[in-house]
């Protein structure tokens, strides 16, 4: 439809509508102030709508750098944690490529550690299997008497260990001793052969 086809009455209305409206500056300010004062209508939304609703973020270069640094930090943290866990579980960065591993079976065996200490309040076992960390393998007092025990899965081979009785290190009186490493303490030795322990 073109203008020439409009009814003259409609055309006069359209002409009036097209004519620019002139308002003075003060009136415009008043109107805009009134509009700004109006509260923005809030459309009730569900939580998931708010979460998934697309939005644009205005970030300064400094904020962007910080976020990037944070993400890198998280990556490094997770990587470091995973690496250390692997190192701990393997007992160190093992590269036994040249020397063949022991002729002993490589399967794990459960070994029962027993220590008699009726007066002790806390006993744990430390060794090359837990990084000599006295918090990792606490022993449990048997219901009757002062016998402390713990069951541990150990790989086949020769393991050095000690008991920590209320903070003091003590060798196992029922196991062979290994010479003092120069630290003022001789450890005990446990030989594990796939299905049994010495």
């Amino acid at each position, binding site marked *: 439809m073109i203008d020439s086809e409009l009814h003259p009455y409609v055309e006069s209305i359209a002409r009036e509508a097209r004519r620019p409206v002139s308002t003075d500056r003060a009136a415009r300010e008043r109107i805009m102030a009134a509009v700004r004062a109006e509260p923005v209508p809030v459309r009730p939304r569900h939580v998931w709508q708010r979460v998934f609703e697309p939005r644009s*973020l205005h*970030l*300064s270069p*400094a*904020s962007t750098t*910080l*976020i990037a*640094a*944070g*993400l890198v*930090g*998280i990556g*490094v*943290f997770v990587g*470091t*944690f995973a690496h*250390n*866990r692997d*190192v701990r579980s*393997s*007992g*160190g*960065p*093992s*590269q*036994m*490529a*040249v*020397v*063949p*591993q*022991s*002729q*002993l079976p490589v399967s794990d065996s459960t070994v029962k550690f027993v220590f008699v200490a009726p007066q002790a309040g806390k006993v744990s076992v*430390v060794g*090359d299997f837990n*990084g*000599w*960390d*006295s918090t990792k393998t606490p022993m449990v007092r048997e219901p009757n008497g002062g016998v402390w025990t713990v069951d541990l899965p150990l790989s*086949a*081979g*020769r393991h*050095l260990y000690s008991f920590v009785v209320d903070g003091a*290190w003590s060798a196992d009186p029922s196991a*062979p*001793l*290994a*010479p*003092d*490493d*120069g*630290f*003022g*303490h*001789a*450890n005990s*030795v446990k*030989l594990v052969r796939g299905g049994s322990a*010495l």
Partner: protein
Amino acid sequence: MSQFLSVLRHRRFPVSLAAVAFALLGALPAAAQDSDPLTKLDPNSRNTIELLVDSASTLGLPADYLRSTALQGVALKVDGKRIVDAVRKKFSLLKTAYATLGPVGGEELKAAASVLYAGAKPAQLTPFKARQKDRNDLDAFVVWADLVTRGVPSEEASSAITKLWQDGASDATFNGLWNSVQSDILKGLNPGAALQSRIRETPERQPGNKVTPP
């Protein structure tokens, strides 16, 4: 600066992200320190130990033996220099054991190094180089190191264990010998005398019971 702070004030979401990032970056060194006890050592000691561990790995020696020694030292709160000395000595003994015994298992190398640590001479390990397949000397080495640690003179322990090994003694024989000797020592007997007394009771030393090595 004031403009930067103003930007931060008006961007609550990025600020919270930045705070999390800062917290994580701050926690990173602490977390790493917790996960590796060797970080408790001074940098020089730690670097030396890591170098020794890496060298052992490169040579195909059981590096976990060295790392475990260092971890034990840290757990006992021994100073870095003593830990480095112990790790260096063990590395040297592992190399000596390897040079003497050849390519045996890592566990046997550790046990042999322990015997050397107790005071045995490398030449005393030589008879253990020749062995039948599937026979390992772990029990012999463990008992040997224990006897010396309990006070049996090194020469006597070496002589007794080597003779038993050459006579084809079983693991049970070595364990039985250890059990009886340590029991005698605990009763107050002289360690050397206890060994001499008990060695005569082993099956391999009974008349007519000579065993061919397996």
